[in-house]
């Protein structure tokens, strides 16, 4: 019996272990010196990107041209890569892909190196608008890789009336009840509510967040569920008819079923940016800069748009895009000025506890 009890205690301990995240907190990233002395072909690069977010052949082409040995590792989410960087004190990666609103954390904690623009002449290929992004004006620390927005992705063959407003989640027509999903993580979880109520997506006002929480709890009754990962395949399968979706992910659905459409609701949406940053602790900064410059070449930016179906902030690349591709995925044709009308996402800082409480409240309701 004693044995049983000990086993049970161990089982309880496992539970606590399962909930435990990575190691200790952040240490300041020391800039790794001496990189300039090493010739480029003797440098190596460790890059972390999301899965299926690097066009096939891009890394091989870079390796062949420069002689730099590249190791690509994958992260599943922004939280994942930020956690890895914080846990390792900024060491272990030379270059990572991370969303703009998470970048502030990394800059604030000293993990990110300031870029040497002289080493990235292809920055000239970017749209002028891509130099004025709120999380990093002038691209001092980061270079935008892709950008886009969030909207409503739906099956035009099943949904009778084209959705135009975020309020569809709150007041849907009868036939859509139980067939819609919303994104389940912040800040997108509150986006339909905040937009419908006319609040900022970066609000830190408790009253506004509370009102948005109530709105979302009311909307929850109409939903099939909250879904961040399978919503486009659920659309293709017909399990969901109308979902809140990121533009690029909606394109994945369109690729499988041309009846799927994407619309930015009339109340407006967000502007997200995925960026490339060089870590302060990297000892291969020249190679990392060379890689960024390589990605910014028109043909490589074009490959990103064609293979990953995301908009790139690279004017030279977008101008080369096959018009047939834009016809098939209309949201690839959104202009930078249309995108910049949307609200850029920022890190909520201290107010994040209001946001997470809201998420818990919605899910627990």
């Amino acid at each position, binding site marked *: *019996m004693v044995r*049983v*009890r000990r*086993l*049970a*205690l*161990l*089982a*309880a*301990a*496992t*539970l*606590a*272990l*399962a*909930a*435990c*995240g990575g190691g*200790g*907190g*952040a240490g300041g990233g020391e800039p790794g010196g001496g990189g300039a002395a090493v010739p480029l072909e003797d440098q190596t690069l460790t890059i972390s990107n999301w899965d299926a977010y690097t066009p096939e052949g891009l890394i091989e082409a870079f390796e062949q041209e420069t002689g730099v040995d590249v190791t690509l590792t994958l992260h599943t*989410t922004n*939280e*994942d890569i*930020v*956690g890895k960087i*914080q846990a390792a004190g900024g060491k272990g990666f030379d270059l990572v892909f991370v969303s703009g609103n998470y970048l*502030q*954390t990394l800059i*604030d*904690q000293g993990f990110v190196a300031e870029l040497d623009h002289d080493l990235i002449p292809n920055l000239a290929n970017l749209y002028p608008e891509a130099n004025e992004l709120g999380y990093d004006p002038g691209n001092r620390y980061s270079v935008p890789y892709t950008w886009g927005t969030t909207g409503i992705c739906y099956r035009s063959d099943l949904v009778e009336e084209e959705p135009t407003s975020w309020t569809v989640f709150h007041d849907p027509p009868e036939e859509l009840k*139980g*067939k819609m*999903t919303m994104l*389940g*993580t*912040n800040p997108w979880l509150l986006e339909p509510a905040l937009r419908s109520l006319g609040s900022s997506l970066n609000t830190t006002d408790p009253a506004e967040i509370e009102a948005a929480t109530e709105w979302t709890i009311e909307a*929850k009754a109409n*939903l*099939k*569920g*909250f*879904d*961040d990962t399978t919503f486009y395949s659920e659309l293709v*399968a*017909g*399990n969901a008819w109308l979902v809140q979706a990121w533009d690029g992910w909606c394109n994945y659905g369109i690729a499988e079923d041309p009846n799927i459409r994407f619309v930015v609701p009339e109340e407006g949406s967000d502007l997200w940016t995925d960026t490339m940053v060089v870590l302060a602790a990297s000892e291969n900064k020249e190679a990392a800069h060379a890689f960024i410059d390589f990605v910014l070449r028109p043909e490589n930016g074009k490959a990103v748009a064609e293979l990953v179906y995301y908009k790139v902030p690279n004017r030279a690349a977008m101008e080369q895009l096959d018009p047939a591709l834009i016809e098939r995925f209309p949201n690839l044709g959104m202009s930078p000025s249309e995108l910049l009308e949307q609200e850029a996402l920022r*890190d909520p*800082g*201290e107010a*994040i*506890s209001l*946001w*997470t*409480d809201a*998420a*818990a*409240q919605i*899910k*627990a309701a």
Partner: protein
Amino acid sequence: MRLGRKGARRGRATGTGWPSRALFLGPGLLAWTLLFAAPVGLILVSSFLSRGTFGGIEYRFTLDNFARALDPLYVRVLWSSIRIAALTTGVALLVGYPAAYFIATRPARWRLPLLVLVVLPFWTNLLIRTYAWIVLLNREGLVNRALVGLGLTERPIALLGTRVAIVLGLLYAYLPLMILPLFSAIERLGVAPRQAAADLGASPAGAFLRVTLPLTLPGVMAGCVFVFVPTLGNFIVPDLLGGGKAIMVGNLIQSQFFQARDWPFGAALSISVLAVTVVLLVVQARVLTRERRLAARAA
């Protein structure tokens, strides 16, 4: 001096001198320290620290995390998780006891193959098995197609995204952990006590309720703990089968570490769950001790 020598001799004779003690205990103790005591210690310490503006941990002592964990919102989530875990455990016991009883009373050559069938699902990753439930329960899934095909419902019904789906998924995931300790308790008991009860005039039901069940109570308790504890902390099943519409405390903790980057609060929630679990285990141990004492007195 004499005493000391005597003690040393005894130690050698039974293999409990300090070198052999260290040899036997060392690896386990090392693993326990590194893999249990140290991480739990880290969590405990973190739960009293503050979150930095952009995540991470700031070394500033605070009780705020625990005050926040006591907010009605979080207490409600914990309470509903306990209810879901208790319901899952109860159903697992109702399903698992007859199954274990059946297997334990088969001829010896059948027991192993039957037990292998019980643990067979463990050969596949839980995540994949849970996705299989999505395929079954979805709107256009197999269950709904069968229901509509048989004319039992006119339209597909919502099976996913309900509490029933969560309990079903958890039950499926942890049922073997109920059956195994029950099987071992029932098998160890053997047929003799049952036969004795029957010879003394007890009906089959009476023999079960007054002999078999009380004597296998430790197995029942073990099975319940093995199912309840991991169920309470599970976050994959509610996430996938609950359609994100319902959360358990495991989801809450997971989201603190990954989405909110609020490690101190996540740590405080973890410690709270650990405390609840320990309290339940103490209660369970008390019940067992009392049971044993009663049995001893009766004997």
